[in-house]
């Protein structure tokens, strides 16, 4: 199948999803990110790789953390960064997504960082750019609907590689609202592509997508059983609105069954790391004793995220 993320030479020109990317590209991104870690420790935290280029942060959905880290990453690459808060601009006046893109291309945009509430929106943009012959303009997906959040997936992989060194012996559990989670989907594709032998999904039936086995994932409903002997535990954020429908009875009941407490974490390996894409709901999906405990690597994830986003932007803009 035609993959809009890669050019004819098989190089990454857009980052839309982890799915369909070969292991060599994931490894290239992680290696490049590692080389950028040193930049963040410098007095002058800049490299000139994107000097003269314009990066547009197009956030059709609210975000603080992801947008900020993309902005920092682009600035450390010496790019000009323009933040567009779309909720308050043209689309509110009826302009279509692709009209917005055409206008920004006319302003000589080089790279779009896109977050959108609809799954697949960045694909639509990438295909449009190809159609109008703008292969000099790149798209990085910063989260689309429930579909993908590939830079989060990659920074999670960076974190795992940093602490665990080797993917080939790991048991990784992803816990919580996988159905609505673009992070979970990106993590699953990244983990399986990088050769993790066992990926587990833990949650109630109402929060798990159907046919998880087809994604190469083992499903557990009992969290203690699911965490047994895991090396990595990835907790997912539970949105408050999940409590209003018939998905879950209450935050309290959810926490009792699927909240990560020190007792439940004790089932995992003693050196297991605990990750979370943020923002956390303490007392809903994670106990503060774990979130602030020695096994949590949640803040390093954020730091690694900047280097990973620098790597992604410099690679796609260079191809």
């Amino acid at each position, binding site marked *: 199948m035609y993959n809009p993320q890669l050019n004819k030479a098989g190089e990454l020109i857009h980052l839309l999803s982890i799915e369909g990317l070969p292991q060599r590209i994931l490894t290239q991104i992680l290696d490049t990110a590692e080389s950028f870690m040193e930049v963040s420790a410098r007095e002058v935290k800049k490299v000139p790789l994107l000097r003269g280029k314009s990066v547009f942060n197009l956030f059709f959905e609210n975000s603080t953390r992801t947008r900020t880290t993309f902005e920092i990453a682009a600035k450390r690459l010496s790019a000009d960064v323009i933040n567009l808060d779309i909720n308050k601009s043209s689309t509110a006046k009826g302009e279509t*997504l692709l009209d917005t893109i055409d206008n920004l291309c006319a302003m000589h945009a080089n790279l779009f960082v896109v977050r959108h509430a609809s799954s697949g929106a960045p694909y639509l943009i990438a295909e449009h750019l190809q159609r109008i012959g703008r292969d000099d303009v790149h798209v990085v997906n910063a989260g689309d609907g429930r579909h993908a959040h590939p830079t989060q997936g990659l920074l999670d992989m960076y974190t795992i590689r940093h602490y665990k060194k080797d993917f080939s012996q790991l048991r990784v559990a992803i816990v919580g609202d996988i159905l609505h989670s673009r992070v979970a989907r990106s993590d699953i594709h990244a983990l399986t592509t990088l050769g993790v032998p066992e990926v587990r999904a833990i949650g109630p039936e109402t929060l798990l997508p159907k046919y998880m086995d087809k994604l190469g994932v083992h499903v557990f409903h009992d969290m203690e059983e699911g965490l047994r002997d895991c090396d990595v535990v990835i907790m997912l954020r539970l949105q408050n609105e999940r409590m209003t429908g018939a998905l879950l009875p209450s935050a309290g009941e959810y926490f009792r069954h699927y909240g990560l407490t020190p007792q439940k974490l004790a089932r995992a390996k003693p050196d297991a790391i605990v990750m979370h894409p943020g923002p956390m709901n303490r007392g809903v999906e994670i106990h503060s004793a774990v979130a602030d405990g020695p096994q949590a690597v949640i803040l390093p994830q954020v730091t690694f995220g900047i280097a990973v986003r620098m790597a992604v932007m410099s690679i796609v803009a260079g191809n």
Partner: protein
Amino acid sequence: MNTTILNGRVIDPKNGVDRLTNLYIVDDKIVALGEAPGGFVADQSIDAAACIVCPGLIDLGARLNSIEAELAAAVAGGVTSVVVPPDADPPLDEPELADRLVHRGEEIGKARILPLGALTLGLNGERLAELAGLKKAGCVAFSQANRPVVDTEALLRAMEYARTFDFAVWLQPQDYWLSRNGIAHEGEVASRLGLAGIPVAAETIAIATIVQLVRDTGCRVHLTRISSAAGMALIQRARHDGLPVSCDVGIHHLLLTENDIGFFNPHARFSPPLRAQSDRQALSNAAAAGLAAICSDHTPVGADDKLLPFGEAKPGATGLELLLPLTLKWAAATGVGLVNALARLTAAPAEVLGLPLGTLSPGGVADVCIFDPQATWLVTPEALKSRGKNSPWLRQEMTGKVKLTLAAGRLVYSA
């Protein structure tokens, strides 16, 4: 006006005809097959050598957003009768609206319009529309298009009322609650792409409810656009029980599956959604066994309404001009013979409608489609007369091209 169609391979599925012969037409009627009737002198002769001559196709579902262009598209696709669902703007819920639509169709004089009246006012599933008045204005049956009746009591009453006059009710079975937030089949692809799913149960629950109400009321029901294996199995059981239930499938659902969504292709968004391979196979088997008619479910959608993320794009595809070549493609892929395949587009929909159409029987209406089964053409926006250029088959080659279409004896299309 006497017309002879010479040397064609005449296929009339209703009468089991498939042979090289001539067809004789006087005014709007077919008068003979094979030998010219005594004293017949042709005013015009049409050479149909190397072509297939079959009854004009009957499409059980086509939306006519811009009526003139869409009727031109119909006859270009060999379709001479078009069943129009009531979900126009405004919905077809008043006799005057139906009257106007039928007259407009007659004025244009291409394909025959067979409107479905709205079952309920505004299609809101609450108050009944004036069914008898709509019938008098030309409506052939009553429908909710693809909007479900949420209130089961309203559905029961509507079916009882329709039964009173022996009107048929056409329903697209889709449970409101299970389908309202969904945008794709709840399956592997939706899970992977993060698209909200519509489970098969949305269809089976609705069919089970409708079938039970048919059992209780005796109302004749035609179930439209079946999408799942389980749904088709329920319908076959109901028919086996002798209930007055028929069904159709959209041609796209016989050829495509959830996998055709690929990377969020908005042209693969349909209502009901494209489902799994096993569903497609079951629908195909049912159609091949003569248990379902095939229709285009023609839904012209403007380019702007498709150039959107998958979940925001309008569902549906253009179909009037693709119905025949896609049905031929299906027949070739499944080994269904040409006579049987054409029956799905002629005799089968005529039977659903209870109208004496879809046949070349002498004495019958001279609706005729003449097509070259070998001719190939490329699907492009320019090649389509329909205003709807939305198709998952764009830039693909079709085999089978309509050469001439006659509606009630008049030449309405010539390639």
